[in-house]
């Protein structure tokens, strides 16, 4: 028993009661002291009782009288037999418990009091239109209705028979109200209806959907029988994907690959079709999804003619690709800001001015941009990216981790035409080349005119530097020019040398007889040899020498001034010593699948070469060569990410890859991983509250961010909400740093689309969310939600499947009945007032 004081301030009136006793000091009445005392006590009592009455006390008292309301779910998904069993159980419980008061409330979309179990049975037996709309289940409203049926002044008990699958209402709100009212809710699970039906239970989509790419959608199909069915997913009437499946009893997850063409909010419709399906309403599940805009990729290719392969692959995988030549690399942050990922493929260092790299670096590190650098011969060495600002951004350094064994054969023209300055410069050049070669390297010199001579047979440089110097100094001009035998001789000599890198440097100033150079050079290339050529002077056969270099995968030089030759020789010697790329067949080996999981590398063709790189300490190596050289390296840097693919992305080293099925998925996975790090300037979310009655509350939330992630404040984003065809334009108001909200209430059955639209905010184009209410929710015959039912019971102090004793015991009885005390107190005061009057008229304690 407890007392609630409604207006406790009135109790301050009690402070005036001592005035009654103080009056005794000034009394002129002639009653004897004992009667005086009695009169004072009685008048004080009147005043105390009146003051207490003004405080409006409400007495809460326990009761032994029990009021039970049985709440029976008669919605369509519940089997009639279960409801009949519930009716029987109600009769049993009432028979044992003998409650002082009980009611039966049948509920589905609405609640209805029924007279008894028989009426309940009749209700579910009647197909078609019934008093209770069975096309939904509103447990929230039903609990409120059940509370209203509890008899006042009784110990309250609610007993719920349900499958625990409400389709509308907010059960959590109902639970808190039951808890605060001290009403325990006991539960009995009800079995679902058995029709031998098949239905779509759920549609699961990946968190991030991109247009154009393949999306593995999982359709959970429920079935009450074994059957074959066709599962398909549609959007706007168009079938996006389908699959024929055999369904077992229960739930079968079916993976359907779909592709969505456009970004934005899309309404997907999962549909199952099976033979002899008794119910249509549950064969379709409609769900909205947000397809992110196609990430924008800037692809800068050093060989524009070869850009089509990667460009097409990325385009097909759902990226918006803009291909530019090297001059098109953005010079401003504004130009870069429109892209999510930049791909730099085989760009020479000289084509990348430092200011542009600085802009690029800032975009990656501060704005979260993604950068993919693909290899090529231009990117390596002192003239490549080594120790450049770009290298700082990347997960690799452009150097060799090992110094390869190198064999260099110089094939030098010593015909008469070389006499004079040319032969002098040739000697100087050869000597300069020797000077930059390391001791362990191998060098051979073949000189030729109309015959050939091994001026220096292949030998190690270190112990023979003096001999080499003397041999070079001894080269003298004579005879005519005959190139082919000398090159052939160099080829044969290199065959016998053991070295990882074998290079031929051919210099000539004249013209030779035609021969089958191409076949010879092809043989050399096949044996991992490379050939560079130097055309000295205007009389040289430049076309031939260029072709030789081209066929030989080397470099060709035209030296009009003999003074340029030493520089060329030094470069060739250095490159031969530390080649910036390995042109050989490479088998990619997956070291760490990471975001490449799902790509079948067992069928990946070999790559034909790679740029030499060394992994940085904190970088992640995903793909490597069999020699454990990095092929694909990745790391986060600042707010962005960078990756290096050490081979190329086109028809040179990746000539076989571009025909591989995994080519597109491989690069799209990389680019997708690189994208998405940037703070979207605007994100849109729509929070749809559970329907209550015929309406639901909707909150549209816009988050605005600066490129560095800081909140963007003091905007007035406009939001368009289309609810069931009624379009409203609302201005979202700011509620927190960077956050804006627009709220509205709409009809519960409405499909709702919210779009962010503001002409001043171009980044908001296409930003929208959609909500589609599940009209068939009641017709999915899922097993009872035991977890929800158990939670309902546990949180309110009820039990699952209670017997009569449990109903009698459980719950709080102390607040069963409330009574306002003031009428009793006032009546008491009135009677005491009469007594007070009597005490003035009758002298007691006197004779």
């Amino acid at each position: 028993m407890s007392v609630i004081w409604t207006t406790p301030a009135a109790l301050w009136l009690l402070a005036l009661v001592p005035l009654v006793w103080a009056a005794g000091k000034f009394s002129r009445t002639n009653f004897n002291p004992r009667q005086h005392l009695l009169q004072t006590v009685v008048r004080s009592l009147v005043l105390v009782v009146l003051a207490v009455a003004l405080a409006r006390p409400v007495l809460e008292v326990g009761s032994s009288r029990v009021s039970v309301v049985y709440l029976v779910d008669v919605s369509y998904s519940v089997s009639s037999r279960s409801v009949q069993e519930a009716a029987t159980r109600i009769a049993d419980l009432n028979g044992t418990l003998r409650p002082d008061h009980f009611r039966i409330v049948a509920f589905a979309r609405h609640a209805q009091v029924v007279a008894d179990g028989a009426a309940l049975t009749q209700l579910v037996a009647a197909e078609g239109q019934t008093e209770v709309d069975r096309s939904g289940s509103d447990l929230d409203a039903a609990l409120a209705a059940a509370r209203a049926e509890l008899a006042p002044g009784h110990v309250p008990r609610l007993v719920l028979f349900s499958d625990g699958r409400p389709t509308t209402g907010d059960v959590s709100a109902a639970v808190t109200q039951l808890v605060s009212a001290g009403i325990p809710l006991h539960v009995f699970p009800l079995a679902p209806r058995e029709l031998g039906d098949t239905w779509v239970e759920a549609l699961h989509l990946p968190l991030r959907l991109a247009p154009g790419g393949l999306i593995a959608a999982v359709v959970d199909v429920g079935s009450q029988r074994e059957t074959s069915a066709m599962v398909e997913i549609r959007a706007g009437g168009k079938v996006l994907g389908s699959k024929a499946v055999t369904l077992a009893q229960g739930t079968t997850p079916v993976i359907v690959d779909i592709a969505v063409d456009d970004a934005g909010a899309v309404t997907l419709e999962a549909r199952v079709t099976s033979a002899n399906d008794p119910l249509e309403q549950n064969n379709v599940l409609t769900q909205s999804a947000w397809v992110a805009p196609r990430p924008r990729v800037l692809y800068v290719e050093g060989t524009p003619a070869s850009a089509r392969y990667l460009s097409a692959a990325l385009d097909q995988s759902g990226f918006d690709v803009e291909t530019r030549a090297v001059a098109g690399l953005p010079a401003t942050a504004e130009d870069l800001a429109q892209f999510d990922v930049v791909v730099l493929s085989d760009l020479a260092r000289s084509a990348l001015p430092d200011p542009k790299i600085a802009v690029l670096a800032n975009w990656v590190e501060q704005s979260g941009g993604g950068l993919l650098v693909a290899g090529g011969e231009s990117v390596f060495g002192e003239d490549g990216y080594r120790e450049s600002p770009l290298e700082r951004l990347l997960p690799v350094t452009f150097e060799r981790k090992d110094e390869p064994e190198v064999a260099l054969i110089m094939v030098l023209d010593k015909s008469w035409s070389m006499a004079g300055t040319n032969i002098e410069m040739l000697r100087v050049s050869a000597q300069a080349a020797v000077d930059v070669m390391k001791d362990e390297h191998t060098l051979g010199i073949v000189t030729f005119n109309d015959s050939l001579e091994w001026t220096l047979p292949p030998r190690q440089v270190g112990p023979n530097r003096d001999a080499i110097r003397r041999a070079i100094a001894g080269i003298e001009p004579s005879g005519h020019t005959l190139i082919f035998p000398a090159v052939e001789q160099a080829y044969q000599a290199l065959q016998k040398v053991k070295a990882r890198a074998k290079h031929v440097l051919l210099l000539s100033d004249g013209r030779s007889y035609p021969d089958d150079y191409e076949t010879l050079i092809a043989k050399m290339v096949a044996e991992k040899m490379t050939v560079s050529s130097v055309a000295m002077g205007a009389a040289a056969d430049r076309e031939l020498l260029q072709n030789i270099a081209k066929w030989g995968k080397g470099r060709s030089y035209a030296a009009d001034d003999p003074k340029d030759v030493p520089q060329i020789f030094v470069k060739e010697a250095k490159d031969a010593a530390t080649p910036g790329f390995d042109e050989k067949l490479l088998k990619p080996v997956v070291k760490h699948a990471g975001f490449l999981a799902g790509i079948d590398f067992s069928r990946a063709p070999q790559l034909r070469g790679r740029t030499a790189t060394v992994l940085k300490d904190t970088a992640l190596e995903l793909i490597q060569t069999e020699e454990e050289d990095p092929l694909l390296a990745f790391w986060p840097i600042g707010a962005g990410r960078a990756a290096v693919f050490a081979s190329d992305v086109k028809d040179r080293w990746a000539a076989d890859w571009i025909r591989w099925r995994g080519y597109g998925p491989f690069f799209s996975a990389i680019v997708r991983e690189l994208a998405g790090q940037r703070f979207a300037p605007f994100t849109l979310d729509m929070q749809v509250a559970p329907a209550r009655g015929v309406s639901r509350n909707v909150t549209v939330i816009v988050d605005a961010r600066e490129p560095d992630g800081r909140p963007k404040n003091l905007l007035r984003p406009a939001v368009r909400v289309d609810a069931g065809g009624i379009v409203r334009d609302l201005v979202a108001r700011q509620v927190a740093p960077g956050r804006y909200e627009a709220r509205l209430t709409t009809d519960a059955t409405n499909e709702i689309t919210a779009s962010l639209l503001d002409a001043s905010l171009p980044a908001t184009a296409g930003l929208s969310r959609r909500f589609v209410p599940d009209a068939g929710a009641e017709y999915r015959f899922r097993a009872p939600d035991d977890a929800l039912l158990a939670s309902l019971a546990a949180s309110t102090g009820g039990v699952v499947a209670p017997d009569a004793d449990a109903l009698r015991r459980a719950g709080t009885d102390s607040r069963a009945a409330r009574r306002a005390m003031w009428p009793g107190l006032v009546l008491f005061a009135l009677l005491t007032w009469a007594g007070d009057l009597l005490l003035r008229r009758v002298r007691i304690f006197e004779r």
Partner: protein
Amino acid sequence: MSFGAMAGWQAWGLLALTAGVLTWLFFMKIRAPRVHVPSLMLWTQVLDVTREQTLWERIRKAVSWLITIAVGLMLMLALTRPAPSVVAAGGGRRLIVIDSSWSMGTLMPGGGTRWERAVTRARTLIASSAGDEVALATTADGLVEGPTTDAVLLEAALDRLVPSGGEGGDWPRLADVSVVHFITDGTIPRPTGDVASGGARVSVEPVFEPAPNVAITAFETHAGGDPQSQAEAYLELANYSTTAQPVRLVVTRGTVSVADTSIDLSPGEAVRQIVPLGRAGDARVRARITAPDNALAIDDEAVAWIADAEPLAVTVVSASPGFLQILFERLPGMKATFIAPAAYAQPRTGPEHVVVFDHWVPAEAPATPALFVSPPPDVARTAPWVGTARQEPEPAWTTSLAHPVLRGVDPSTVTLERARTVESAAWTPIARSATGTPLVSVAETVDYRRVVLGFGFTEAESNVALQPAFPVLVVNALEWLARPSLGDQVRPGVVGLEAVVSRLTSPEGRRVEVTTFGATRLARITTPGLYLAEGGGMRSALAVNVGDPQVSNVERTSLTAQTLSDTAAAQANDPWWPMLIAIAFACALVEWWTWRRRITV
């Protein structure tokens, strides 16, 4: 006049009876005390008194009688519960729904608040129920009382009600209700279609009078994503009146004033401000406004909580902290203390929000939230409470659930050389290897929160320490352990809290009931303010604000002109009985003095 407790003739009869009984008692002849007096003295006294009786002496008996009768009649009249004459509605079960939106607390130019007027209107409706069952509900509380025919009970329930929000609430849909009386100011528009579709007639009872108001319509802080960024607050003030007025704004952080300024607001003007707060300082931020024409008080104050204003006190128990030490030295929001495992049992002073156990697990479960890093392989023997050990060489991190601990952690950048973790029913894995080994697990009850990382940070164990995932993962875990997210933009109503919150205390120090419902905790918050949330060794705060222009703009209503025109007709007086009792109390007290002084008889 009608009588709520009985029929009119019964009431009048009882009043007459009361008057009769009291009159009879009053005029009862008092028996004088028996005193022996010599007759000569008596007659001498009589003959000597020549003074004429004063008017008061002549009428005082009549006045005394009237007072006596009046007190009795007032008490009896109170029992009959008189009220102004009302027309009984009749026609079955009725539901009275009072809109308990905050705007109902608006002080009206005509006097009283909308809420008081609504309660008065409800009383009138109850009085007119004429024996019908009446249920009482509010949009915030749902069903409050009834359905019952006991008007006293309904009135007592009305006395207990206060506005407590309920902007998002709705009225309960009761069976067999013929009429729903919705008493509202119409500030928050509410659809009535479903009630009507249920067969009930909806009668909107307006209690609207436009009133000027100034409000804080938005207030929220943002601590910034990275340690260098500063906290800031977004503040929106609005003047919903037809005249310009100066508004004094005071923003405090703890007890320190951050801003104290006066702003002149034009009619209908809203001012939006970003208030820089700095990073360090008190976590409690409060904004308060005062203005001359301000009809609604509930929106004059707003609160916010900067969760990471106070550094987290972390104790790292490790024999060789290595990368952890380097990390904590660089994390500005952390204050780490490093101790060896042997020193763990020794008492420590100062706050300790989280304990990190690096490659070591104590024999007894810690009382504070704890992060375990790569538990030792013999953990089942040395600390059986934590579970059984499980190891896997070179695990591939393949599965991650959406969990705050893993937010922003990119498994694709992580290479693990070995996993060494624990398993038991208490742990819920949130990241697993390809073979199913838990790599990150969490445990959460009302008593504790724990996280176990199945990998260490040394080079022999993983590359995590060199990856951006390292600080992200560790900070996420520590934040989750010590500062559970309690949500942004919390408004009064039913609030979902994390499972670890076992105790919620209101700004006044009152405990708020927290109900476990499935995996969440529900609390019904009825007043705005800063609520203290505790559980599992953590303490945090929940900032609850009204902040809503729709609530604060009490100048306008969604009710139609036709509905509003009924306002005057709907006026009703308060019940008379408290006033009758109060007058009776005063009369009884005064009469006692006059009688004792023989001024009355």
